[in-house]
């Protein structure tokens, strides 16, 4: 896509807003439609858009596959870690009541981190799938 100036300029303009919108969807999930899964998909879509316009090699420099693998695992650790925090603070596993002095606020705080974990893992898995498919070596043309 090197020759398409319009596409390159628009992409550079749009991607920051896409990522910002992902954060909005992430944090607004409490009050309206949205949440970790959708936000993760939008973040991944921003990177995939970048890869489509500027090439896979550049995208791999921006978000290395090593980082993607860590993101996939990190989200699970965050999600499960909040549950373990419940045990450490004297409750049961996945007990969010004990995360704050006010039990309702504790639940909100617990779900906040759960959604954060979901966002990280979903973004990671989306990118891992994209890299796996896009990174396959092209077959030579059958002549």
């Amino acid at each position, binding site marked *: 896509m090197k020759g398409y100036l319009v596409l390159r300029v628009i992409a550079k303009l749009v991607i920051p807003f896409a990522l910002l919108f992902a954060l909005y969807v992430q944090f607004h999930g409490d009050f309206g439609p949205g949440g970790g899964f959708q936000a993760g998909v939008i973040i991944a879509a921003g990177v995939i858009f970048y890869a489509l316009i500027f090439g896979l090699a550049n995208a791999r420099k921006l978000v290395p596959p*090593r980082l993607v*693998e*860590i993101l*996939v*695992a*990190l989200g*699970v*650790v965050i999600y*499960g*870690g909040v*549950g*373990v925090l*419940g*045990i450490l603070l004297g*409750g*049961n*596993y*996945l*007990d*969010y*009541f004990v995360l704050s002095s006010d039990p309702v606020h504790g639940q909100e705080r617990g779900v906040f981190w759960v959604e954060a974990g979901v966002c990280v893992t979903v973004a990671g898995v989306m990118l891992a799938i994209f890299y796996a498919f896009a990174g396959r070596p092209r077959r030579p043309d059958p002549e």
Partner: protein
Amino acid sequence: MIAIHFPALQVVVPLLAAPLCVIVRNARAAWLIALAVSWAMLYVATGLLAEALSAGVISYRLGSWAPPWGIEYRVDPVNGLLLVLVSFVGAVVMTFSRASVDHEVPRSQHHLFYAAYLLCLSGLLGIAVTGDAFNIFVFLEISSLATYILIAMGRDRRALTASYQYLIMGTIGATFIVIGIGLLYLMTGTLNLADLAQRVPQVEHTRPVLAALAFLTVGISLKLALFPLHLWLPNAYAYAPSMVTAFVAATATKVAVYLLLRFFFTVFGASFVLEQVQVPAILLVLSLAAMFVASTVAIYQDDLKRMLAYSSVAQIGYITLGVSTASATGLTATLVHLLNHGVTKGALFLLLGCMALRVDRVTIASIRGIGRTMPLTTFGVVLGGFSLIGVPTTVGFVSKWYLVLAALERGWWWLAVLILLSSLLAVVYMWRVVEAAYFKEPAPRARKVTEAPLSMLLPAWALVAACIYFGLDTRLTVGVATQAAQLLMGGTP
């Protein structure tokens, strides 16, 4: 203090250790994490079983939400026994795994391999520990997806098709199970197993509940490879890495058997399933078919892993046969054979893993004369074979003894004869191995091999020793199994 969280930790620790393996991205560190977690889980499981035996049912509220609304983890002697079996096999297999996995899996994938193993362990333990029907389905999917990955890691390219075949069959099974659970939820409005047990009898003759029983029976039977739903099993066991075959053969089908027992006896109730719907008659026919057909097919296999896979299908026949006698003795036989076959098959597949390290593909031809060059491994296979056949002083004898007792208790002397006859088929297929290993001239490759390293021999022999030990001292296995069987039958002796 920490002991009250054991039911949750049983699942959470391996679940969180899996992403940790991915993050450290180092083969040796991942192996150490998986090894430490496996042994820790054995400690947790024995603690849970001991408490369930002395203090009765342990109930744990996930997220402090009261059951039946919240998810409840519930441990009684039945699933306590399963937890110990799964984590024991896991711990032994992990100890064994390093040299074997180094040989069979590319080093760059080791951390992912161990992560998948931990997820599989977590899923299997989760199915056993949870008291929530939908939770069962979720853990079933976790363990199944991890198993597909592990099987596909086999060196032979056919591992991919074997894994794909299992994926299709496993998904059909899981779908049937979730349909069954959905129908139960539709009729009772609850997913908690203990709550279901109270509500199902009020609606038990409605058609959706009967359909739920049918869907659950077929779905779980696919997972436990009940004849004729076993077609995914031989290829999956034959082409998976040795360590995976040993772990999956000793645990996955056993956990599925536990599910069947849990739904039959706890949720639907013994009198409904055994007397009113006539499930035992169907199970009896299928179990007998499994014992004879699968054992006969095993005789004609040249690949030893495939042979033992067919033998597994036959042994599952013995396990379900115990259920079909519809008595507490039969159920004891089922539970005892569940443990005994897990240990026996674990031992045999680990020993085949030792041979695979030296001769790559373990076939009747490639192990000719191997008894001279790998004496310890081969002798272990012979002892494991004794246990499969049911020779006295091995665990196989104990479970067949109780099966025959259950048959005679019902006055079915013909069944006792059939059990003995099918054991003779096991003699035939194990004899082929003994003949090739001891009495044939060594194959050119078998002449040069040396004994497997101690790190593999010791764990494998630990399982062989367990086969003999529990064959002589049956207090632990039969004692707990009797108690669990009585619990399932509803307290009737």
